[in-house]
């Protein structure tokens, strides 16, 4: 572990910005929320915050773009995708524990197994992640219930924790170690007591999370009760409030579903990949208009089951890291934690 002063950290970021597009969390004055903003010149923008809690934007959006071209046809032998056809790379600063865990989960779908999405893989391989500790949590945060923590545990190149006039820095990859080595002059020994300060900060945030979420079940306790509730009226009740906007899935760091569609472009055709949402009625509609989830309650239910029942069976993990974005985004105030409280209570009654 090393220490870096805030001014030197900015110098480091300036240097790293040569390795790809640099994004940092910036606090928006009117809402108080953090948004990932591209830094194209220095000094860093006013309101840059490296602690706080997770930004509105997920890491997923960097690896799986909202909408982009995946193929042009007809053409000769364009099925070989060269890395240089793709992206310059990203340097992303301020990713939190919940987002690192989410990225690991989406990686297991998009970048592992028999088929690998080359676009996702290239972006992931070229993503330098400097993660950071949370110094607070939002009302909607519940990482503590999902086996995550409000600090980086793995899946980063460097991890920083704000202490005193700078940051404690830990390496999490060879690339991260190389950065510390190459820029040795910017770092110093960790003064006595700073690690303790960091650990106390962590403890403080974690106990706040525990206090906020004390009445809600842990994710690991949800799957079994959920399986007993497939035909329960709870889904109709939740669906009666849902406005089918798809915000919960679009904002989710582990929702990876997408749509492929084709467009004409002069003499050529383009194939576009776009995020999609299982909450909207056309999502699974087949030719002839049949759909396996015709009712909104089927679709509302599907989101919970996909994350907490199906993916644990197919990918061995609950696909929720407790970031709480779906709770913030829902205009009908559907709170996943409350849904699961009801599920567990009813199922074990």
């Amino acid at each position, binding site marked *: 572990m090393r220490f870096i002063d805030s001014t030197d950290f900015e110098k480091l970021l300036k240097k790293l910005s040569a390795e790809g597009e640099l994004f940092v969390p910036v606090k928006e004055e009117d809402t108080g929320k953090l948004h990932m903003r591209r830094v194209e010149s220095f000094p860093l923008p006013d309101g840059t915050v490296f602690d706080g809690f997770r930004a509105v934007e997920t890491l997923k959006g960097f690896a799986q773009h909202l909408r982009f071209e*995946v193929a042009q046809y007809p053409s000769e032998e364009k*099925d070989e995708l060269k890395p240089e056809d793709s992206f310059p790379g990203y340097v992303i600063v301020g990713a939190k524990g919940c987002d690192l865990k989410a990225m690991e989960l989406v990686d297991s*779908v998009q970048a592992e197994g028999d088929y690998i999405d080359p676009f996702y893989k290239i972006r992931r391989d070229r993503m330098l992640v400097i993660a950071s500790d949370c110094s607070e949590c939002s009302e909607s945060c519940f990482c503590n219930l999902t086996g995550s923590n409000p600090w980086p545990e793995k899946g980063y190149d460097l991890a920083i924790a704000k202490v005193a006039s700078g940051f404690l820095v830990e390496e999490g990859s060879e690339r991260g170690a190389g950065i510390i080595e190459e820029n040795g002059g910017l770092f110093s020994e960790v003064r006595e007591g700073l690690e303790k300060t960091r650990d106390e900060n962590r403890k403080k945030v974690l106990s706040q999370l525990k206090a906020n979420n004390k009445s809600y079940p842990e994710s690991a306790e949800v799957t079994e009760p959920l399986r007993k509730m497939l035909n329960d009226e709870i889904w109709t009740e939740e669906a009666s409030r849902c406005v089918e906007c798809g915000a919960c899935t679009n904002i989710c760091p582990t929702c990876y*579903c*997408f749509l*492929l569609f084709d467009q004409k472009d002069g003499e050529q055709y383009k*194939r576009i990949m776009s995020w999609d949402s299982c909450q909207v009625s056309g999502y*699974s509609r087949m030719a002839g208009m049949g759909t396996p989830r015709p009712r909104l309650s089927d679709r509302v239910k599907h989101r919970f089951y996909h994350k907490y029942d*199906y993916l644990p069976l*197919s990918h061995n993990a609950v696909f929720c890291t407790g970031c709480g974005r779906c709770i913030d985004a829902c205009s009908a105030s559907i709170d996943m934690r409350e849904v699961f409280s009801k599920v567990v209570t009813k199922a074990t009654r």
Partner: protein
Amino acid sequence: MKNPYYPIDTILEDVISETPTIKTFCLKPAKPIKFKAGQFMQLTVPGVGEAPFTPSSDPNIEEKMEISILKTGKVTDALHELKPGAVVGLRGPFGKGYPLEKLAGKDVLVVGGGVGLAPMRSLLYALFNDPSKYKKIEIKFGAREPAELSFRRQYKEWEGLASNISLKTTIDVAHPDWDGHVGLVTTLLDDLDVSVPESYALSCGPEIMLKFVTLKLLEVGFTPPQIYLSMNRKMSCGMGKCGRCNVGHYYLCVDGPDMCYDKIKDVPNVFG
């Protein structure tokens, strides 16, 4: 790295009208495509989009491929308008294909309805490759009306291939042009000439048909592990990534589209 979303340029060489609503599209892809019976392709109509289809042709032929398609939606409407010489695109194959290795030495019951006969023809070609590998090949085909029975020109030839092959057909309701069996395809399952404990049943058709075929098969003594169903869901990426073709925790595009009923029998509303 290969781009799995890129469609291979494919020439439409011929179009055969099978029924008033089903056409067989004879395709020649720019490079050979090796597939197993039951695996599916994503077929692109340029500018319109792509849709999933299981080939209806012989899986031993890699240079050409036939796909028999019902006119029923945006992509298929556009396909039915195409004339020989048109350029389309193919991606795939995707999915697992039929469990041919399990069928060796068994009685094989093939139950198809409507456009569900299309993937079944590919399965039959695979079985006919060496009919002696199976104890019996019993085929039951149904359609709404006589004109909707695909591949009728081939039935006689198939039955004559080997003595262990039989084929029975039915139409849903009586029709002046029909003097054969009348009734849903499930009615052909009442007097099966197979040894049920030594059999596998494979079925493809509309979901409502699959439901009643399954119920009938269970009634006559089949167990869920002996039943394979070609399930219908919207499949897009073909690689278990885009999310929409799930049946419970399975993605049909990688785990199916032919699913052993034993795996999916507890999924609520599995037949829609």
